[in-house]
Structures are given as C-alpha cells and as structure tokens.
C-alpha cells in the first residue's frame, strides 16, 4: 500500500512536471466549488462592481488611442483570468486521484472483472443474445410506468413443469471462462502441485544426500589410492597427484 502510494506520488510528480511547478493554485473558494476562476461575463459573474469603473474608463481611453493610432486592426486580448489549456485541468478539477486510480495501474479488459459477482456470461457482446443496453435505449420496451405485484390469478401463468431445464436454456449457470480458469488454477495449485513438489523435494534431498556423501566418498577414494600407492612402488608420486587432481575436479 505504501509502495503504491509512493508510486502514485512519483507518477504525479512526472505528471505535474509536464505542466511545471510555477502554476498558481486556484483560489480556495473556487476549488471547493469545483470551478476555476469565472469567465468574464459568465453566469456567476453578475453585474460589474463599482471598483471596475476606473478600469473601464482606462480601457476606453486605450481603445480611443488605438483607434486614432496606427493599430486600427488591433483587437482586445483575451482575459488573463479565463481558464485555458495552459493550466493543468486535471489538477484544476481535483481529478488527480481518479487519474492515478485509472491510469496508474492496468485496468482489466473484461466486464466480468468489473462485475465479478454478476452471474451469467456477461463478457459476450450484447448483440449475441439481444441484451444490449443500446437496444434498450433505442427501442424501449412497451410497458406501464408502474410495477404492480403479481396477484393469485396472474401467478397461475408461472406454474412450471417439473424437471431440469434443457441445456441450451441454462444460461445462468455459465460463468465467464476466466473465472473458470482461475478456479482451475486454484485447483491445480491445490491438487497438481503435489506431484511436481515431490520430485523437486526429492531432488533437493538427493542433492543434499550427494553433498553429504561427497566427503565420505572422497575419503574412501583417498584411502584406496594411498593403499594402491603403498602397494605399487613403481609410481610413488603419480598416484598422489592424480588423487589431488580428482578431488579438485569433484
């Protein structure tokens, strides 16, 4: 968890590095509302305050100067307070958490990963079994606006024949294959590992035995070679050198 947080923090550093650290934070009231500095003349701007009159007079003077001067095609600059793409809009709207949540780690592709408890094959396209949400919007079912309980006489229509359903109708019991695989993996982990584990264990034991046996064998071999060397006076030095070389190899 701590690592995850650290990872997110690191990513956000990179993320904010794209926009530089000099970006001024939005005003507290504005961020609390989820909006940045209001556009001039926007819905929340209201009538211009009295303080603004000197500014407007100044602007008018400038406009007059501009009209009389050489810059007759000059337009007014856009307001500096307007929210543009120069600000990091994700941080502006406090969406860093969502960004880290969805873009920080890999989101699983299938719908069954999002709704793991939903029964049935939900990963198949809705057009296969005519269960798409799009069709529900485009062709809404013709029905009354209220839901009424099913009374005694209406319930007679739901009397069913005894016995199991034919296999092609058992859609509810079919689960997405990924789940099955997971289950199989779990099973294989519980059942299968026994055979592979045993050989690995035995191998390990064998290795241990080999290791345990090795010094004993060496001793025995050395003793045998010494005896041979004692009995064969023709090659007194060769035997000892061979023994040393053989021991060094093993």
């Amino acid at each position, binding site marked *: 968890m701590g690592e995850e947080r650290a990872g997110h923090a690191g990513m956000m550093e990179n993320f904010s590095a794209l*926009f530089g650290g000099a970006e001024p934070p939005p005003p507290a009231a504005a961020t609390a509302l989820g909006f940045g500095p209001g556009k001039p003349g926007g819905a929340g701007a209201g009538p211009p305050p009295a303080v603004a009159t000197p500014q407007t007079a100044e602007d008018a003077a400038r406009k007059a100067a501009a009209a009389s001067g050489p810059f007759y095609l000059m337009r007014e600059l856009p307001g500096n307070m307007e929210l543009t793409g120069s600000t*990091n809009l994700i941080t502006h709207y406090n969406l860093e958490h969502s*960004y880290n949540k969805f*873009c920080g780690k890999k989101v*699983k592709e299938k719908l069954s*990963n999002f709704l793991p408890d939903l029964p049935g094959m939900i990963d198949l396209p809705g057009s296969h079994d005519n269960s798409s949400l799009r069709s529900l*919007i485009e062709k809404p079912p013709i029905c009354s606006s209220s839901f009424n309980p099913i009374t005694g006489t209406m319930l007679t229509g739901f009397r069913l024949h005894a016995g199991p*359903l034919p296999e092609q109708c058992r859609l509810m019991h079919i689960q997405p294959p990924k789940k099955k695989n997971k289950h199989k993996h779990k099973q294989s982990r519980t059942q299968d590992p026994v055979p592979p584990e045993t050989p690995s264990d035995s191998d390990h034991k064998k290795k241990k035995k080999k290791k345990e046996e090795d010094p004993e064998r060496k001793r025995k071999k050395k003793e045998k070679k010494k005896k041979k060397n004692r009995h064969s006076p023709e090659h007194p030095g060769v035997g000892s050198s061979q023994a040393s070389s053989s021991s060094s190899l093993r």
Partner: protein
Amino acid sequence: MAEKFDSLEEQLEKFVENIRQLGIIVSDFQPSSQAGLNQKLNFMVTGLQDIDKCRQQLHDISVPLEVFEYIDQGRNPQLYTKECLERALAKNEQVKGKIDTMKKFKSLLIQELTKVFPEDMAKYKAIRGEEPPP
C-alpha cells in the same frame, strides 16, 4: 456523491441475487417449489419498485452513451474513464504547448519589432499597458 449510489447499488445487488435464486429454482423445478417461485417473482416486482424509487435521487446524473457501448461489447466500463482521462491530458498538453509556443512567438515578435519600429512599438505598449514577460 458516492452515497447517492449506495442505495441503488444495494438494491441492484439484492435484485441480482433474487434473480440468481430464481434461476436456480427454475433450472431444476420441483412441484414443491412453486410457492418459493411465486415469492421470488413478487420479490422481483418489489425489487424493481425499489430500484425505481432510487431514480429520484439520481435525476441529475448523466451517463455518457459511449459507456453503454463498452458494456455491450463486454468490456470494462472503467476503460472508458481511463481513455477519457488520457485523452483529456493529451489534449491539455497539446493546447498548453500551442499556447506556450504562441507566447514565445509573441515576445520574440515584439522584441524584433521594437528594434525596427521603436516608436510604433512604444505606442503599442502604451495601448496594451504593461504586460508581464512570458
């Protein structure tokens, strides 16, 4: 915000569970389970009524139609959110790049024009007022 969805989520979970149980009863129906089936059917109706009641709390929620396409294709709808955020960030970066480049261009242009037309540029600066350097 999330509290709004809690009751709907709860109702939907109950409804799905009821449907699942209904499916089990129907898949191997026994005459003795008719009463249980009738009860489950009425639970389904009340479940739908409860879900319908949740509509009042969520009248201000709008869902993009593209999300339905993801669900219809059997894809995780969170992928839509992810792609949206990635697209927004990419566009944001592009626009920021353009704005920064235009600001640099403007300052360079003013600099060069000041060398060639110092008087006119002095007038221009007087009209525009003092602008902070980019």
